[in-house]
């Protein structure tokens, strides 16, 4: 049997088992695990414990970053810090809509940018920001769309963009030079989304909205909120300024230090074990996804399915690839979540690199499009989470429709960044 037939059979088995598992209403993570195990057996490797465990190890460090960053954000929320910021902003700028919208965009971008997860943005800031937006008279469906789109952008925003990190790692490319290529489109698209969807709307009862916002505990102040961020940024700056005089700390420990600072400064007592345990519970779908994606990729690599997808992708007509990026990326994200990065992203970046495009800018462009898949079935984790958190009760179709304009903007920005990546190479600063 030739390699193509063999790999196609294994791929077929994997797809079949994935679809079967989904039909049985199993979660995406477990479906991916089942597909991987079935592929391993179909490929003639049996149930290889070594390969499954090795694949599961792939994103251990990224999982640690996830856990510590989310722990930091959760402590900040539990201590009343986020409520303090939202309330403060709303009180000060409730009559200056433009400024408030800019600040809300930035606020929504921060949690996801730091953790790499849009769901963290939704959980940490989504509820409060939607309260403010509703207070400003923005309809519920548009509020939900804003939270979802900006949360997606926050996940793509630097410093942690998992799509970019995972794809870069897959092609041995340094995760360096991504800051501005990711930051600029995220900011632009985020602001456009906020203003397009949130500009219109007669302010409802501002005072009532203010009342609805959670009240921060007494003793909370700006210093207590800023200091943990100072610790985090300070560790990054120190590490970058004196890399050879200081000890290697790594991102998880940096986030842990920030989390502990926030914990110590909190005006109200918190149960650290309980918050940590809740954090793990909250993150289980994401940790599970990353672990199962690692297993899936390992088995795809083992059986040559990754090679089949890669060689098929890199030999496609380039115009076709450019023209279908806006479909391929969100759909791959909807099916595989972050698995889309190593499975689809890696061959695409190989193709762009061999074509002489700038792989960093191209990958940043792709990273802007990927999050759109988080609203699409079968997974739609973040889309559904947003609908829950913002309290939107209309149809899911209406929610998707509300997301359409900003989604098209993101698709256009992302595709243009890929096509003109060479000309935009200066953004990398390399």
């Amino acid at each position: 049997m030739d390699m193509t037939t063999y790999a196609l059979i294994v791929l077929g088995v994997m797809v079949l088992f994935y679809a079967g598992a989904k039909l049985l209403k199993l979660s995406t993570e477990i479906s991916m695990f089942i597909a991987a195990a079935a592929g391993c057996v179909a490929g003639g490797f049996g149930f290889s414990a070594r390969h499954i465990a090795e694949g599961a190890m792939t994103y251990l460090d990224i999982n640690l970053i996830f856990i510590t960053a989310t722990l930091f954000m959760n402590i900040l929320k539990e201590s009343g810090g986020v409520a303090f910021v939202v309330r403060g902003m709303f009180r000060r700028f409730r009559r200056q809509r433009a400024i408030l919208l800019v600040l809300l965009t930035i606020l929504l971008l921060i949690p996801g940018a730091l953790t790499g997860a849009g769901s963290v943005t939704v959980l940490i800031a989504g509820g409060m920001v939607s309260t403010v937006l509703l207070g400003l008279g923005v309809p519920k469906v548009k509020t939900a769309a804003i939270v979802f789109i900006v949360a997606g952008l926050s996940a793509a925003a630097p410093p942690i963009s998992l799509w970019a990190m995972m794809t870069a790692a897959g092609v041995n490319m340094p995760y360096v030079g991504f800051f501005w290529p990711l930051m600029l489109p995220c900011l632009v698209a985020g602001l456009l989304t906020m203003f397009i969807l949130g500009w219109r709307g007669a302010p409802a009862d501002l005072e009532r909205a203010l009342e609805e916002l959670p009240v921060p505990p007494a003793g909370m102040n700006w210093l207590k909120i800023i200091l943990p961020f100072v610790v985090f940024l300070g560790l990054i700056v120190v590490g970058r300024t004196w890399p050879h005089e200081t000890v290697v700390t790594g991102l998880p420990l940096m986030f842990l230090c920030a989390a502990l600072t926030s914990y110590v400064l909190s005006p109200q007592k918190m149960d650290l074990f309980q918050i940590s345990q809740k954090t793990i519970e909250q993150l289980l779908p994401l940790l599970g996804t990353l672990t199962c994606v690692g297993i899936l990729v390992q088995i795809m690599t083992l059986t040559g399915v990754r090679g089949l997808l890669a060689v098929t992708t890199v030999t496609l007509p380039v115009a076709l690839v450019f023209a279908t990026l806006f479909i391929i990326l969100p759909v791959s994200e909807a099916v595989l979540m972050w698995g889309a990065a190593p499975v689809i992203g890696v061959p695409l970046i190989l193709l762009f690199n061999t074509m002489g495009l700038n792989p960093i800018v191209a990958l940043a462009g792709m990273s802007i499009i990927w999050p759109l898949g988080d609203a699409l079935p079968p997974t739609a984790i973040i889309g559904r989470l947003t609908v829950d958190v913002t309290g939107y009760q209309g149809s899911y179709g209406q929610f998707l429709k509300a997301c359409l304009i900003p989604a098209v903007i993101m698709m256009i920005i992302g595709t243009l960044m890929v096509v003109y990546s060479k000309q935009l190479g200066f953004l990398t600063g390399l």
Partner: protein
Amino acid sequence: MKASIRKLGFSIAGLVLLVVSGLSFYESRHLKEPVVLSDGVTQVMKLSKYFPDIEGTANDCNIYVLEGKEPGATLCILGGTHPEEPAGRLAAWLFAENGVMMKGRLIVVLSANRSATTVTRVGGAYPPDFIIPSPWGGQTFRLGDRWSNPLDQWPDPEVYIHYPSGQYLAYLDSRNLNRCWPGRPNGTLTEKTAYAFLEMIKKEKVDVVIDLHEAELQYPVISTIVTHEKGQELAAVVSMTLTDLEGFKMGLEFSPKNLHGLSHREIGDYSDAISLLFEAPEPFLDATRGKTTTDQLLTGKDEFVVKAGKHGLLFEKIDEKGWPIDVRVGRHTSAILQTMASWTEVHPERPLLCDNVPRYAEVIEKGIGKFLQDPAHGKPGRVLFE
């Protein structure tokens, strides 16, 4: 009750997976690779001799010295900088098990980043080891990875900043020996390893250092010598002679001055030695490869990589014959022997001449296994382990 039995069942299944995989990882980390010393090996040292901080770490590797019958220059071969490129290690192995220096001195390193030999790449689906068949059965080698084992160096930095240039590199590359030159004494394990080697190069007054590598066919720097400015003429002659006489093409590339951490740049800059890096083709590393197996690793045959080649996406030719390990190892042994010959042409007063190591054609004809020695028949005290 039912739920707790279910939970127990799942937990036991998880435990079995953990134990079975854990045992496999443990075994490959501790697999012993015998080295039967050639009669030409006059001394075996530890790297820690040059930098005691390395002592007791995974990277305190063996250094094999082959003192010549007549004096001459000193050449050092670094195998195993990237253990997942096995032709580099195997070529060095042939020198350690067969080489006899007639003139000059040879220093051979088989596992420059020994830590990286003890782990395979997550997500890469590598086999843990591979067997080179030999007339006496065969020898098993650890496959290894490109980066040091996280069990020996953890955590990775937020971004890796190269010492002393300050160049930003991927965080993973803080565990890549070929991004850590010239190293630093108070750095990470990988940086300390590079520092220790540089100390050795200086103290032993090494004239030429050759770092042996392999590359994926989609990588532009392939089937070539990368040379520091100091070695340009030597490399040009070696490249031309090999292409003319041995039937394989060997290109030439300059070591970029603004790309830091690589052996061909930093060894040349921070010591008196000429630094060269040899690249052979290894389709096993290509992201478009098919099934990831030991067979693919050793034969270099791959339908998908051939398909990528037909679309003009590769920098080296490949057909259904693939790139067998014998061909890749033979390229390295010939290139090293030719470097000695070309060096001697220019420096007749400080010659280098090694005997008993097969060149390209002979390695292909007889296979590497023919030149691997049987540890069961090694003389007492002449069998060591990597």
